């Protein structure tokens, strides 16, 4: 287990370095000056700004400086927001995004597990079919379509819930739902497959041969074994949630990180793009690492190596 975690950790660090380097060089060789929106500036002023941001030095020097600052959580300052620090901007946007992500995960995971289990236990019946169609729909309808529909029909037309803005818990309901559907669909499908696999295992027969009722056998033996591998979906789900947050925050006008990122892309605020890219990457990569380790901890076959004689 220790070796396993260490190896994963190494990969994490390398991957992170690759993505940071990639981001840096792509952003710095991007066609068009980062300051193209300020074309009316007199050349002297532009040069001054370039100097201020360290853009007049050779690329390798900039790269080393960049890495050094990065190590101190200094991501530079924004072009658009009058030199506000990118770290500040991220910290300002992150809480809303995090809240949405956590709410969506909780709701999605709970309903996903229920849906997946019911579907597997009633395999081949109409219940299973309905649940399947539901979950396929869940990740076939892109979340920006779903979010738009929810905002427009539930928010604007029916006026049941606020269609946009970020002013209190009720404002988080629609965006959370928009994100949770994908989580639910993914988890439901995964759990269904795992559950069917587990139900066919010999140890389920052993459990029944012991005289356990079907219910007890499922709760005590099947569910646990089906849930353990399902932990691995949490990694890709982090990506799914981030992807979703980019558009969902846009649609619901939520001042989170996703909204900030899309905004920076649209105005070429390249320090912010770089900063958020790196932050997202770190989030995803560290998340995947933690999921791997978590999996190792909850699965006794990995946690405790075999002591076979």
């Amino acid at each position, binding site marked *: 287990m220790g070796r396993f975690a260490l190896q994963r950790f190494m990969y994490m660090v390398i991957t992170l370095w690759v993505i940071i380097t990639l981001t840096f060089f792509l952003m710095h060789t991007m066609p068009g000056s980062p300051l193209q929106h300020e074309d009316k500036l007199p050349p002297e002023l532009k040069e001054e700004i370039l100097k201020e941001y360290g853009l007049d030095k050779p690329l390798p020097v900039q790269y080393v400086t960049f890495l050094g600052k990065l190590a101190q959580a200094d991501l530079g300052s924004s072009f658009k927001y009058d030199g506000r620090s990118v770290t500040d901007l991220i910290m300002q946007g992150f809480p809303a995004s995090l809240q949405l992500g956590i709410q969506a995960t909780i709701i999605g995971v709970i309903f996903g597990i229920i849906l997946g289990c019911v579907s597997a236990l009633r395999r081949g019946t109409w219940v299973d079919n309905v649940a399947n169609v539901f979950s396929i729909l869940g990740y076939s309808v892109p979340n920006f379509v779903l979010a*738009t*529909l929810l905002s427009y029909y539930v928010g*604007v037309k029916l006026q049941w819930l606020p269609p946009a803005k970020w002013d209190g818990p009720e404002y988080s309901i629609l965006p959370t739902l928009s994100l949770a559907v994908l989580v639910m669909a993914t988890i439901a499908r995964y759990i269904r497959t795992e559950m069917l696999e587990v139900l066919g295992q010999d140890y389920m027969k052993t459990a029944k041969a012991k005289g356990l009722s079907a219910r007890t056998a499922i709760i005590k033996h099947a569910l646990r074994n089906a849930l353990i591998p399902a932990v691995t979906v949490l990694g890709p789900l982090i990506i799914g949630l981030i*992807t979703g947050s980019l558009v969902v925050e*846009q649609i619901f006008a939520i001042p989170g990180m996703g909204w900030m990122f899309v905004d920076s*892309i649209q105005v070429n605020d390249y320090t912010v793009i770089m900063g958020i890219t790196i932050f997202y990457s770190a989030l995803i990569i560290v998340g995947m690492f933690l999921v791997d380790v978590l999996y190792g901890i909850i699965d006794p076959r990995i946690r405790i190596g075999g002591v076979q004689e």
Partner: protein
Amino acid sequence: MSSMNSSTQNLTPEMFQPIERDTLAQEGVSSKKITFWGDVWRRFLKNKGALIGALLLLVIGILAIVGPEIHSYSYRSVNYDLINKEAFGDHWFGTDGAGRDVWTRTWYGAGISLLIAFLATAFDLFIGVPYGCISGYYGGKVDNWMQRIIEVLYGIPNLIVIILLLLWMKPGIIAIALALGITGWITMARVVRGQMLKLKSQEYVLAARTLGASTRRMLTKHMLPNVLGPVIITIMFSIPTAIFFEAFLAFIGLGIRPPEASLGVLINDGYKVLQLFPYQLFFPALVLSLIMFSFNLVGDGLRDALDPKLRQ
């Protein structure tokens, strides 16, 4: 044991003459033979969802080709006298802010979205399959190094790379397909390698070889179905992913430039006027969702049909 239940039989001494064993029909395997692909096909046909999905795809595919040609308007012909009109006359889906026909643009856009997805999948195949094959076939040191690279690349989130690449390149059909392909091949390579490794260690492959199966038979009967199946399934799931990403990128401002149209661009345009003209978002969004839904249905159906573990 039951006793003497056949006492009414008329038994004659002739019936007790020994007979040659060979004269008896060996009816060991008398049930009709089901080939692997025949079996896959049968199970696929039994899956109503998959059939519906395939049918939908066929219809959408035909419409994407024929749809834009039905009327005289091209996807880019503007008409400032007919701006933002809901469905009327032969503008079945209405017109947009530049008086362009939404029906024509929707199907043209569907075609472009599908084209991007197919191109991206072609990239997946061209890089992923050889990479996976080489890695899995040679094994050892080669595999080890190739795997390390994959291991690092796999950790890099697709989303980030695609966005960065599109910021760098000018978003266009090829650029988007390329960005999707560059990130997508890794999954394909992993799938192919996994299958190759599994096959190499599989006892039945050894058994078939020992029994003198020809190379050709080995390939067609054992290797091909086992590698092809997962590859097809991966394709069936990577196409809707690519279509989703194209639309997603358009939505965050990294789509194809107007007057070109793709489903993503149309949805983005429609979104901007949602409050006033919701129909302009509705049709492309519906087509996009239907395409994704159908591909997922077919992909699911194929996976179930190809997975011998779930065979009944």
